[in-house]
């Protein structure tokens, strides 16, 4: 295998605490994503998975360690790393088409040759069609449903042909049905696009269904707990989620998340609730023990 497309070496990140003492959020993260690999990152809330993605995007600076994308160390955000956020970041004052072409107007792309410009146009058109957005081309983001908005966000992040696509719970705000549609669309898109992706989610099923590899982060401070290889190719269908191998893998990953979770189930509270429920059923003349 050639050099990884994305590599994190002993990456650490501290945030300033209330009393000025730095609080470590991530510590000693080693992780790679090879060419065209789809890596999902899951973990209990507060494990720093979103922070990790923001570090790769260059939106926050690492405290220690190095992040490399295509061999170059990350220093600030750049068009080689596309990012899709949980909430839509489409500019509401631009139409879908103008949003897609936003990056074209930037100084970074000013020196494009006429060939590159025509390729850019063709690529925008192709992404628009592939994502089923041709109809809403002239619409403003506020006129679209949440699912449609996220499709445009993904298309916009891909249009500049980034080395890696970073997605931070992109479907977290969508309803279950729309999310399933989006999953199949993303599988289809990545089969055609062959882009490397880092995908942060709290939904383990989503992670397995989309990814080649699932990385579990443990919290306090965030560190890599385990890595799980997903054995299926990209041609996947919803039925896969019902297969026993899929369910087993899901169980394994969930067990890891639970084992590392900072928020341990409050057994005392659950027990007292159970006692309360029993007492009530006795009062109501219930026969349940």
């Amino acid at each position: 295998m050639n050099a990884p497309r994305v590599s994190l070496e002993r990456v650490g990140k501290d945030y300033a605490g209330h009393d000025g003492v730095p609080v470590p959020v991530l510590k000693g993260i080693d992780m790679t994503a090879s060419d065209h690999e789809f890596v999902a990152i899951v973990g209990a809330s507060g494990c720093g998975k979103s922070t990790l993605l923001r570090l790769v995007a260059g939106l926050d600076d690492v405290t220690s360690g190095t992040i490399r994308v295509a061999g170059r160390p990350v220093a600030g955000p750049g068009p080689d790393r596309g990012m899709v956020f949980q909430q839509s970041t489409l500019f509401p004052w631009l139409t879908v088409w103008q949003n897609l072409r936003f990056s074209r107007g930037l100084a970074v792309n000013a020196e494009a040759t006429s060939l590159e410009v025509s390729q850019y146009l063709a690529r925008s058109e192709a992404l628009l069609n592939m994502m089923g957005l041709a109809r809403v081309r002239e619409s403003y983001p506020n006129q679209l449903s949440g699912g449609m908005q996220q499709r445009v966000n993904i298309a916009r992040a891909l249009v500049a042909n980034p080395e890696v696509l970073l997605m931070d719970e992109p479907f977290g705000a969508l309803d279950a049905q729309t999310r399933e549609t989006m999953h199949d669309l993303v599988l289809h898109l990545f089969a055609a696009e062959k882009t490397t992706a880092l995908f942060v989610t709290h939904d383990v099923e989503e992670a397995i269904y989309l990814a080649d590899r699932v990385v579990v982060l443990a919290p306090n401070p965030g560190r890599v707990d385990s890595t799980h290889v997903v054995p299926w190719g990209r041609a996947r269908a919803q039925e896969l989620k019902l297969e026993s191998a899929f369910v087993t893998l899901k169980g394994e990953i969930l067990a890891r998340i639970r084992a590392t979770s900072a928020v341990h189930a409050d057994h005392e509270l659950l027990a007292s609730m159970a006692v309360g429920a029993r007492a009530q059923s006795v009062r109501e003349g219930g026969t349940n023990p």
Partner: protein
Amino acid sequence: MGAATVGTRKVQGGGSLQQAVPAQGRSRLRLGRIRAPISKTLYGGLAVAGFLLPLAIWEAISAWHLVGRLFLPSPADVWGSLAHWYAGGLLRDTGISVYRVVAGFVLACLIGVPLGLFIGAYKWCEALLQPINDFVRYMPASAFIPLVILWVGIGEGSKIAIIFIGVVFQIVVMVADAVRKLPDRYLEAAYTMGAREGEVMKLVVWRGTWPQIVDILRINMGWAWTYLVVAEMVAADSGLGFAILQAQRFLDTAKIFVGIIIIGLIGLAFDLLFRALHKQMFPWYRP
């Protein structure tokens, strides 16, 4: 879903009654509901009624001589005073007042909007300018009159200066707030697409806060008119505010009414103009 089903059943059960007064029955139900929409006709009708009702009360009070004419002239007196003033240069007074307000307001925009943008966008600008701006903002504009006369003189400049002082600090603080409220994620999205600082400022911060800025200008235009009378206390010999002060000296209550009503009407016209402009310029905007 449940509510909709219940609603359908009700209409079906209503029989012939629902055909006779469906809209009325529904709107009567909804008037008491918070944020319930009403028809355009009803909206327009109520707006006219909102003007006519006080006018009717006013007319009634003067028709029954409940208050002396010196304190409350009748609508007819005010109308007569308007006609008299019209013959005696009302348009000239209105024109000069509009000029002063617009000049002071435009100057305040030219200085206040960019300052607000920078204060909202850059923390160091905020640290440098916001505390002093907040300090000066609470000083009453009318208290500056002696200083303005001393520094600017008693020409047109001093009236424009008072209106400028009255609104510029408000514009700064409101624009800065609008910029701060622009969600971080728009800026971050632009950065990840490779935008530089200047481009983010121009293509995201500026474009993204335009609707709020036009709204802020609309509100401040209203405030600029309220400073007009104050401004025309400064050695003026023309203008609506000056005429009102003059009328006060001669106890010409009807003329005071005319002046106040005209200022109100011009203010309303500017407000409607800004609203129409806003709708035209920002079809995408949803507050």
